[in-house]
């Protein structure tokens, strides 16, 4: 029964992801910290992953009944620091209360100006030991890579556990562009100043880092049992950077990454936080039907529909603030609008913006799923 349901849901999700019209608008939710809070697990335990954390996520999915989930297990601090956000972290249970979010400490750079030259010469992977030394303060350095391998080895097992339960996972691995890695490691302020002061150094270092990032991500993705990468982004957004700077420092690398994944037989979900409305026309450069765009309530998803229809599937975007402070009626009305406008002619997956906030009202999360059943059936 579960496998039958799994296939039905997978077909619904993948039809939409490939710009088609499924039987109904699918719902894919990202319930990580929310799952911990909802099921009474302390985040100080949840963040370290493993089976108990995954089970909490599965129990939450069972209760809310989306068609699929974004990821199959919590993003371990090591995955964040080495793959997305190379800074020190404040952790629940150590620096923060047991039930808090983790937070990134971006006060001091973990990548110094001279490190651009090091990366240009040796690549990103050779720089990782320095990141570990400067950021990872909760385990001995020699234990880091064995732990990472163990986390990655767990991914296909998690995928299978979710499949047995009847839930497809949308993304098998997460990574970001070199720009995003550098902006966290240098600190956002310093990195933006670098763009004016040392533009060629930044460009050369991004060129040098890119092959390493792709190699590592593809290795994990190949064994994950899921065919899609989660390619994140925040600080390249038009909310922060002019289109001219986006063209100079961002788009060429994002485009290369997307193309490399597609050439290798994978698909891409762009998980973009903040307002990327100005960047939307650039996304037409990505291969049609292979990319989905997940926005977080800041990007104008209705504009995205106008610009990217027939080219990129859209996923989103109930605002985290609405899920936290709004009412189920508000969520219902917004989801209806999303389904009617963005979901018209398919190519749409209903979802929260970014992730479901830990403090979201559960009845608001239910309202998303219910809206898909109420308004999302095609051909009715």
């Amino acid at each position: 029964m579960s496998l039958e349901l799994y296939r039905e849901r997978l077909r619904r999700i993948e039809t939409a992801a490939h710009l088609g019209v499924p039987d109904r608008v699918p719902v894919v939710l990202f319930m990580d910290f929310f799952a911990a809070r909802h099921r009474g697990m302390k985040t100080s335990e949840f963040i370290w992953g493993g089976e108990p954390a995954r089970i909490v996520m599965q129990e939450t999915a069972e209760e809310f009944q989306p068609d699929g989930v974004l990821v199959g297990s919590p993003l371990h601090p090591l995955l964040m620091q080495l793959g997305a956000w190379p800074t020190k972290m404040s952790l629940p249970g150590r620096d923060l209360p047991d039930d808090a979010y983790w937070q990134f400490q971006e006060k001091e750079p973990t990548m110094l100006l001279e490190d651009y030259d090091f990366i240009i010469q040796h690549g990103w992977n050779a720089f990782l030991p320095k990141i570990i030394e400067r950021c990872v303060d909760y385990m001995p350095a020699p234990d880091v890579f064995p732990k990472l391998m163990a986390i990655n080895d767990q991914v296909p097992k998690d995928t299978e556990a979710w499949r047995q339960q009847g839930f497809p996972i949308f993304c098998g691995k997460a990574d970001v562009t070199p720009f995003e890695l550098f902006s966290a490691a240098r600190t956002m302020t310093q990195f933006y100043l670098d763009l004016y002061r040392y533009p060629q150094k930044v460009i050369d270092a991004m060129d040098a880092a890119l092959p390493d990032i792709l190699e590592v991500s593809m290795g994990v993705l190949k064994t994950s049992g899921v065919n899609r990468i989660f390619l994140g982004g925040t600080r390249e957004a038009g909310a922060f950077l002019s289109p001219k700077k986006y063209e100079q420092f961002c788009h060429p690398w994002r485009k290369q990454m997307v193309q490399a994944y597609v050439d290798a037989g994978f698909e891409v979900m762009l998980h973009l936080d903040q307002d990327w409305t100005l960047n939307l026309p650039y996304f037409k450069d990505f291969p049609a039907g292979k990319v989905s765009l997940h926005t977080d309530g800041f990007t104008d998803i209705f504009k995205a529909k106008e610009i990217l229809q027939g080219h990129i599937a859209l996923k989103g975007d109930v605002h985290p603030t609405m899920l936290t402070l709004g009412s189920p009626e508000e969520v219902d009305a917004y989801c209806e609008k999303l389904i009617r406008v963005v979901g018209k002619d398919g190519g749409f997956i209903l979802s929260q913006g970014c992730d479901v906030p830990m403090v979201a009202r559960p009845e608001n999360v239910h309202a998303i799923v219910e809206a898909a059943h109420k308004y999302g059936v095609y051909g009715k």
Partner: protein
Amino acid sequence: MGNLTPLLVDLQEGPFLAQVKERLATGDDPTQLINECRDGMEQIGKLFETQEYFISDLMMAANMFSTAMEDIKPHLKGANIGAGEKIVVGTVQGDIHDIGKNILIAVLSCNGFEVIDLGVDVPPERFVRAIQESGAKLVGLSALLTTSFLSLKHTVEVLDAAGLRPKVKIMVGGGPVNEQVRIFAGADGTARDAIGAVTLAKQFAREVA
């Protein structure tokens, strides 16, 4: 004699800072230099509003301005550069994010506000103390996490309990903060970005004057 305004507006850091040093060395009036910088920042604010300039441009301009001010300050020798309206700013308790707050502070400073920066993870009592000690009538509360909404609300409540609420205008801002959060927190205003926040702060400054 040069003019710092176009160099700042064009974000030409090298020539801009060189001219600051050169003109100070030749005895130019430091207040004139500051006025030229403020003119530049005003133009940059307008370019931001028309989406010709972006946050990264603001950050670069603010950095140039503050570096210039470090050079200029020792030359002021008590010259009156206009006492700015005081504003107490901080990221609320439980939240350590400071980038949004720092962008706001940079832009407020460039616009002549005297910013009292309380840092991050600031307990409500520290806001109370800072307002009482400084006499500031404007307050900016920053938050990035959805879990910080309660902290925003609690901070406003503590200011109220201390009898300060009728005397101050409270602005809230940060990633997920919008009008819905402003109402929840009981604050007076919110803005989508730093330039909007400065416009709001100017409006509130007039109201509390």
